[in-house]
């Protein structure tokens, strides 16, 4: 009883004051760090907008790059080239990545699943220039020329661990109770996977695939090695070199012409807008998918 009325037990001591100071300092510094991260994005997007918007026009988007020494070209061939290269890469990496994820989460015993997961993490950390050199030796050297295919293979290798790892994480979020329900109905495991687990996780799987596409759309290093020499006339043949947005940005920014610099900014704006859009769409799918799984 006496303890309850003894107010000295709850009096403000120096300990409390110190605790409050530390608390405030930690809160402030983490807030500043968060603001800095947001600021970096805003500055990048802002400066690209500021410098690129001027050169952006329908003409710029629908005209192929001007020949060397001429001005007034656009980036239509680079947009088409990037679309083709990334589409082929996605067509290779997304099915394989999903299958790897399904195997490791649904079928593989832990002693296989854990090493596979580790290998994917390592692959995710391989510098893309190394992947580029590898594909150079694998495809460009025996073929004798650079090509859109070579670029696609390199980008597929970059995408694969991203697709597989995000898919693994999403598949693991599917509640065990659903698999149990299917199991108790006498539904075979592979059928449960195809008809219950994957549909439940579909939104999240799509998110991972979109993020991987966004990640490689601006990938430059492998393209420099594999697909930076191309004939201006080749718009759609991936067996030859294809133009691409990252290579256009790189080459235009290396040029001494100020017009070319502005065009590089405009191309960068297109690239950033595409990546941001993919990220937003991916978030929407992911939010829906989570809702479904937590239902």
């Amino acid at each position, binding site marked *: 009883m006496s303890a309850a009325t003894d107010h000295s037990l709850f009096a403000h001591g120096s300990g409390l004051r110190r605790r409050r100071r530390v608390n405030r300092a930690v809160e402030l510094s983490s807030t500043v760090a968060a603001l800095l991260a947001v600021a970096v994005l805003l500055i990048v997007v802002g400066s690209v907008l500021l410098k690129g918007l001027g050169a952006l026009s329908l003409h710029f988007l629908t005209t192929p790059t001007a020949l060397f020494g001429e001005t007034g070209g656009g980036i239509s061939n680079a947009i088409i080239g990037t679309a083709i290269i990334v589409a082929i890469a996605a067509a290779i990496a997304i099915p394989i990545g999903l299958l790897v994820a399904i195997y490791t989460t649904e079928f593989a015993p832990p002693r296989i699943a854990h090493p596979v997961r580790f290998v994917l993490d390592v692959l995710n950390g391989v510098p893309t220039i190394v992947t580029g050199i590898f594909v150079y030796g694998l495809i460009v050297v025996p073929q004798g020329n650079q090509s859109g295919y070579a670029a696609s293979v390199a980008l597929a290798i970059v995408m694969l661990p991203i697709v597989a790892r995000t898919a693994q994480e999403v598949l693991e979020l599917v509640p065990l*109770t*659903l698999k149990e329900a299917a199991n108790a*109905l006498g539904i*075979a495991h592979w059928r449960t996977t195809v008809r219950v687990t994957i549909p439940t996780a579909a939104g999240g799987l799509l998110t991972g695939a979109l993020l991987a596409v966004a990640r490689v759309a601006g990938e430059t290093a492998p393209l420099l090695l594999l697909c930076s020499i191309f004939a201006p006339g080749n718009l759609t043949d991936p067996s030859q070199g294809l133009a691409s947005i990252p290579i256009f940005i790189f080459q235009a920014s290396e040029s001494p012409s100020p017009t070319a610099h502005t065009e590089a900014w405009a191309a960068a704006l297109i690239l950033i807008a595409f990546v941001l859009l993919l990220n937003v769409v991916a978030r929407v799918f992911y939010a829906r998918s989570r809702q479904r799984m937590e239902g």
Partner: protein
Amino acid sequence: MSKIAEQARQLSSQQVPAGTARPQVPRRDRGNVELAGLNAWYGANHAVKGIDLGFDAGLVTAIIGPSGCGKSTMVRCINRMHEEIAGARAEGHVRLDGIDLYDPAIDVVAVRRHVGMVFQKPNPFPTMSVLDNVTAGLRLTDAGKGEIEDRGREALVEAGLWEEVSGRLKSPGAGLSGGQQQRLCIARALAVEPEVLLMDEPCSALDPVATLRIEELIGELKKRVTIVIVTHNMQQAARVADTTAFMLGGELVEVGPTERLFTNPDNERTEQYVTGKFG
């Protein structure tokens, strides 16, 4: 075998012989389950210890006991779901109408088509409509051929859900209320026409009204399917079960007609448990 288990076995053979218990219930010739020397482990943890127990067709049997007494594990051995958990194994015999479900020649997946299960939390498939949920067991196995949708509608009627959902068979199953979802899961289990229905604390996530609805349903369903219900709610066992079995520490302590088990148990520990002295 321990004295208690021996006693329990005698009790079970004495007290629930064919034809004597609840004579108003029509006897069915299918769906008699018999556990003999059933043991189950999680790794080194011996969770179910040498259980001999019968579940008779046409009756509801409740399994009661404190948390961790092995009642859920025992029930999950009946449809061989226990062994799905990594490191878990079971030994002994579970006979369904004389067929040993633990015989090496038995297909585990087929066992589950004859022994249905309803879980603690309603778990409808979130991507499927009401009707697709009910027919999932027919559509996604080789068992269901022919009039799948008709069978699904019948199952919804059997689960007492038809009137509430007949207008929205194509809308998502996850959009129903908790109690409706659980009856949807019961309908899903019934659609494949099992002989036995295992219910692992089916009302623990439901409100009292939804619970009552499920309990009424159990009373109606026992005519067509043998029901084994795990519950830690003794009032629920008293309300729904013809026979009640009390488990403690992985062993079967006592089994008998529900009324007698709650009012005049033979075993001292049963009496202590049902009067609330522990658990």
